[in-house]
């Protein structure tokens, strides 16, 4: 089928290679979807949708989802899933929020503390999954319930409001023409992309998700690496909790409830395989944006609330179906 003896010597040029890669990129469909949906929404909503301001609004709304989606992408690369993210946000919000309210927690330290608490919650997930062998869906379903229970127990009917300026700045301040929350989310995404695409860690989690036996047969410490994805997801949930607290200028026992399904939908939509081994951080970024754009734009069409919900749900199914279609018919 090919006459080349040594493929490296006659490797295709960089340009054709990258074009070829783009053609087969797992996020191709979602990228096309973005353009199509953007054009349609612009056409039917008049002047309000297609403005810089509105696009920034979409990004700002998506920032919390994006931070979580980066962690979820790493987890799903290993073939796992974490549905406890919303509940982890609740716990971090309860502890950090109350600490800030009573003045026991220094506002500058709050960022570090939020991430550390989140990472610890994630580590518990990782332990249950890799050491006790509980399947990820059930392990995180357990903590989904337990962490929320803790939050409600800890917070009761309390509502933390009027957080320190440093915390609200994380959610509200603008830096270099964009909300700080958007910068934070983009930086996390960039770091996630680097880790996934350019480091051993990315290779190892891909190998684990692709074929755990293959990974185990090598020097890769499969358990530790798998567990670490949940730790990272937890740490990012801590960061997301802080951004969310800053945005709402408050924390309550309900914080983060229901957020996880939104995040998982965005990640799968972006082209990450639900069963592990294939993932794309760029796709995740685009997937989060597509859902944000739809939620934002559908309201602006003036469609009734129920119609919006129907369209949103069906479009998500259609987009995921397209993803799977590409995977089946495509070269990979």
């Amino acid at each position, binding site marked *: 089928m090919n006459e080349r003896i040594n493929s490296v010597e006659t490797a295709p040029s960089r340009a054709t290679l990258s074009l070829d890669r783009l053609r087969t990129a797992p996020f191709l469909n979602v990228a096309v979807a973005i353009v199509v949906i953007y054009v349609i929404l612009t056409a039917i909503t008049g002047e309000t949708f297609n403005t810089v301001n509105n696009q920034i609004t979409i990004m700002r709304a998506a920032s919390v989802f994006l931070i979580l989606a980066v962690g979820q992408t790493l987890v799903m690369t290993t073939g796992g899933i974490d549905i406890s993210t919303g509940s982890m946000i609740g716990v971090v919000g309860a502890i950090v929020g109350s600490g800030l309210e009573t003045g026991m927690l220094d506002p500058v330290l709050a960022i570090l503390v939020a991430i550390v608490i989140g990472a610890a919650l994630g580590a518990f997930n990782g332990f249950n999954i890799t050491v006790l062998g509980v399947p990820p869906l059930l392990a995180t379903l357990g903590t989904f319930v337990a962490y929320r229970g803790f939050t409600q127990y800890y917070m009761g009917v309390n509502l933390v409001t009027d957080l320190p300026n440093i915390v609200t700045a994380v959610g509200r301040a603008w830096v270099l023409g964009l909300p700080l929350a958007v910068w934070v989310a983009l930086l996390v995404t960039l770091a996630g992309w680097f880790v996934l695409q350019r480091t*051993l860690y990315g290779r190892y989690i891909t190998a684990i998700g*692709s074929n755990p036996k293959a990974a185990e047969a090598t020097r890769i410490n499969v358990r530790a690496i798998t567990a670490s994805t949940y730790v990272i997801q937890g740490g990012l949930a801590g960061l997301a909790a802080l951004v969310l607290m800053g945005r709402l200028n408050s924390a309550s026992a309900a914080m983060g409830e229901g957020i996880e399904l939104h995040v998982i939908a965005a990640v799968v939509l972006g082209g990450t395989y639900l069963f592990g081994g294939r993932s794309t951080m760029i796709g995740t970024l685009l997937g989060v944006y597509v859902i944000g754009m739809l939620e934002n734009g559908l309201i602006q069409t003036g469609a009734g609330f129920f119609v919006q919900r129907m369209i949103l749900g069906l479009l998500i199914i259609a987009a995921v179906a397209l993803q799977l279609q590409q995977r089946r018919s495509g070269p990979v």
Partner: protein
Amino acid sequence: MFGPRDSAAHALLRLRPAKDREEEMQTETPLLEVIDLEKRFGGVRALQGVSLTIAEGESLALVGDNGAGKSTLVKAIAGVQPADTGQIRLGGRDVSIRSPKDAGALGIEVVYQDLALANSLDVAANVFLGDEPVRFRMGWFSVPDVRKMATETAATLQRLRINIPEPRRPVANLSGGQRQAVAIGRSIRKGNRELLVLDEPTAALGVEEVRKVLALIQTLREQGQTMIIISHDLEHVFSVSDRIAVMRQGRIVATRRTKEVTKTDIVRLIVGDLEGATE
């Protein structure tokens, strides 16, 4: 020469014809000696005092029915499921193989039947998986030296006379033979691979693919690679082995020089018709 492991050695020799034994005496220390391995799974004795030797550069085929103990033996040698009792000596030294990592460190590599490739990684990533050269060291977050990996992979594949047109594509896209080649390439990439164990290297391949894989094994033989090859297909076994060991019910019932035996003999040994086989 046998010293303290006399009994084991005798157990080994008992089943072998005198001619073999004489030759054995003349050669130097064998590369691998497996002495009196026992392995139980509950009440089942999967290995019942198995002993085996392989000389340097030799290609030994391991044949036998399903459940004869071939996989268990390989898993013991590879450290996946260490044996309960018995000894393994490599290059004349006693070694302890309690995990795949121990085996790897000693230069024992197994290419499993299911290939154990990470389908969504490319050829070089698979060849180097878990053992990547790095450009920038930072633990798990080290940056691998992709260029070096590509060059070395190409060199390895060339040494094996394998052609993979698009090494940057995920290995899921490769044919069965190419995947087998990648798996073997991974195992022999490092110069210090003492022993290569191939578990059913030709299973589930098309005719043309089988031919390529056999040619690959032949290349390895010419390069002096010591190998254990497990196979069901006697045709293949006869084309690439120097010696054939037959397992049955957890024991090695016979070892024969490939040149000096017929397929019919081997089949008889496999099914337990020992009388017929001993000419």
